[in-house]
């Protein structure tokens, strides 16, 4: 078996969660990398959409930003930003919203706004962009981020993007149309959500990672699947494509 990094495992595990013919609304960086990986391996017919209004992109390189021109040439349709959010996302055409974030809580809510108080933050992040509505309106949301105690937190400093809110049927009661988070993938493992409580649990650990390591990098008392598995290793093919897309490990080293 080829050697691989945990960041590579993360992107491969996430890519596998995408299905052929999914309509995928991606954020730039690792979500795009994982989506292109899926498209070049098991899901050749998925549609890649970005908030810059590009529909059905076939990028020739790993895009540098959501508006990289390599996403445009050869795509099937282009609409304005507000059209993408209204006619596609709000209308219910998006199967998967694929997001990163700075902090996540046990119910899959995300913070990408501030650390500390909103009015005088210790750290100011870029803000929601389209994340709030992507997670509100996609049929399912996938979250990918490196793991750590300051990222997997008991309480978010700011709720930018709704997951299951306070859990149970809170999301449904709030009237959010999309289905909510289906998975969180990190460099340590893969997390799913309890169908009733909507609390995140550890579903698989990546090879060489212990449950204790995951717990140490989680800011709450983490639940673990009874039938916890090891994440299947990346295939040669998956690794080849990831490395072709990100030869300098630019995205993978920076964010993981």
């Amino acid at each position, binding site marked *: 078996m080829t050697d691989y990094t945990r960041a590579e495992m993360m992107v491969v595990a996430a890519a596998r969660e995408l299905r052929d013919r999914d309509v995928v609304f991606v954020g730039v960086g690792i979500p795009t990398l994982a989506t292109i990986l899926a498209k070049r391996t098991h899901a050749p017919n998925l549609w890649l959409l970005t908030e810059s209004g590009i529909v059905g992109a076939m990028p020739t390189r790993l895009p540098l930003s959501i508006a990289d021109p390599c996403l445009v*040439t050869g795509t099937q349709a282009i609409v304005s930003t507000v059209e993408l*959010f209204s006619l596609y996302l709000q209308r219910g055409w998006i199967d998967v919203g694929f997001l990163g974030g700075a902090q996540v809580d046990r119910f899959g*809510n995300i913070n990408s706004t501030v650390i500390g108080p*909103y009015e005088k933050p210790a750290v100011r992040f870029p803000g929601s962009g389209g994340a709030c*509505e992507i997670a509100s309106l996609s049929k399912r949301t996938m979250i990918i981020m490196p793991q750590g105690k300051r990222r997997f937190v008991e309480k978010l400093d700011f709720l930018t993007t*709704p997951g299951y809110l306070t859990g149970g049927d809170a999301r449904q009661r709030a009237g959010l149309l999309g289905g909510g988070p289906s998975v969180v993938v990190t460099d340590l493992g893969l997390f799913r959500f309890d169908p009733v409580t909507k609390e995140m649990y550890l579903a698989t650990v990546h090879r060489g990672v212990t449950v204790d390591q995951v717990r140490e990098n989680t800011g709450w008392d983490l639940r673990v699947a009874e039938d916890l598995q090891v994440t299947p290793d990346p295939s040669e093919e998956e690794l080849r494509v990831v490395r072709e897309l990100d030869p300098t490990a630019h995205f993978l080293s920076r964010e993981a």
Partner: protein
Amino acid sequence: MADDKLMTMREAIAQYVNDGDTIYLAGLSHLVPFAAAHEIIRQRKRDLVFCRPTPDILLEQMLSVGILRKVEFCWAGNPGIGNLRVFRRVVEKGLPFPVEIEEYTMFGFTARLLAGAMNLPFMPVRTNIGSDLPAKNPKIKTIQDPYGGETLSVVPALRPDVSILHVQRADRGGNAQVWGITSDHRDAAFAAKRVIISAEEIVDEAVIRADPNRTIVPDFLVSAVVHEPFGAHPSYAQGFYDRDNDWYQEWDRLSADQAAVDAYVAEWIDGVPDRAAYVAKLDEVTKAKLQIEPAWSGQISYGVYK
């Protein structure tokens, strides 16, 4: 047929951007109107309300010279790179100059502009629910659907005093065409009281009229037209040049130090008289690197009807 509105950027900004204005700089990370933004900085227009969904490095440069009173936005980052370091200093520490911020989501922000363009007071949006943002921005309200009774989030119309759009081509009257990512260009023009167009190419009106479905802004909305080749550098113009990604990465390093930002502004903005001088100052290696080969659209026929 409109008047000839071709003028220099200096004239356009002097005439159509006033101190205290709400300005809208259009374009996501495509066709970013850097040439216009630099001229606004050079002329030190003051007390501006800056509106842009993804403020980008334009914002960094404007924040550094203290000409902004307020920033309305939804994603303030260095696209594909990370955070905006000047913006962080401003928000976290009030340095070098404090500003007020008004924050929305991307859908909320662009829906505000759509409402302005349509001359509606507001636009309902199925977002903001469950987020902490409405608690921090009282302009995000709710409305009752008079049909099903459902409660919807609404955002108020955005109506800039002046919108500035960089486009691929325009005629001298202001008919403007954009292809590739069209982002917020159309709505920015329709929502505004005044519109400044800068274009990579000035073409004959007949070129526009040969393909009217590509026109994003009609001439009678436009106050000024500026011929500004390479006017979106370091961002890109579909079909014209690539993004200068090394520059964006360099900014990430440079902007860690406010003194370095100030030196950049002094050299590359205040230190040049106009865009032509800026382009001349760019090194040839960079310019060559950003060149691209054509990929043609093919032609369609509108047909002769007599």
